[in-house]
């Protein structure tokens, strides 16, 4: 299991969660609910426009022991953040 967590960061998501337009705490609360619906080792993709979602989902991943594989942001207005999170347990 740990072996898979060290693998590539361009993992294909098992599920996509769209929280665009929602504010804290929705991105974190919905992520915690969505991650329970995928298998351990699978990847969840989260889309968000809340500018707090980047530090918040980073903290959430650390607190829950899930692995934040990558965060990317586009140049749009509002900016859309894309997170790839691997369920670890």
């Amino acid at each position, binding site marked *: 299991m*740990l072996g898979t967590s060290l693998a590539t960061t361009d993992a294909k998501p098992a599920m996509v969660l769209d929280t665009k337009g929602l504010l804290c705490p929705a991105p*974190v609360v919905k992520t915690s609910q969505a991650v329970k619906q995928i298998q351990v080792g699978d990847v969840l993709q989260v889309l968000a426009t809340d500018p707090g979602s980047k530090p*918040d989902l980073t903290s959430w991943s650390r607190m*829950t*022991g899930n692995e934040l594989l990558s965060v990317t942001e586009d140049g749009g207005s509002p900016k859309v953040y894309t997170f790839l999170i691997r369920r670890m347990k």
Partner: protein
Amino acid sequence: MTLTTQQSKEAEIGKKANHLVLVVTNDTIDKVYPPMILATTGAASGMDVDIYFTFWGLKLLDKKGQTQTKIASVGNPALPMPNIMGMLPGMTAMATKMMKGKIKKYWPTIPEMMQQAKDMGVRFHACSPTMGLMGMTDKDLIPLTDSICGASTFLDWATDPNSVTIFT
């Protein structure tokens, strides 16, 4: 992430408080959303969460008062009007309506958020001396209420080194 940082992150998780204790002493919009946001986020982050409702905060567990959350139009310098106007009849209702209209676009209502928190495992506690003060009995409490308790129970949670207590 390397194996070493993964392990050090896990060690860090072990050191952090995992029990969140929130105290709600008021039932105005600005005093209720922050603890409800922390409660749902704490539960989403794997924390145990207890909320202690006391004084006007207890209205949130009162069947009659739960949906009547307002915003104060007096003594609230953040509102976009002179404070003296807040004293006029109807101003609290107007400020509340405006604020609730704005909030509705982004957040659930407070009763919806309390139900969401409950579904995530957050526990609600009614302050027993406040109930006495306000002449309330257990029949007045909404079904989401987990217990009626007093200062000793609260201090039992608050003095646990694995807990963190926040007053709002």
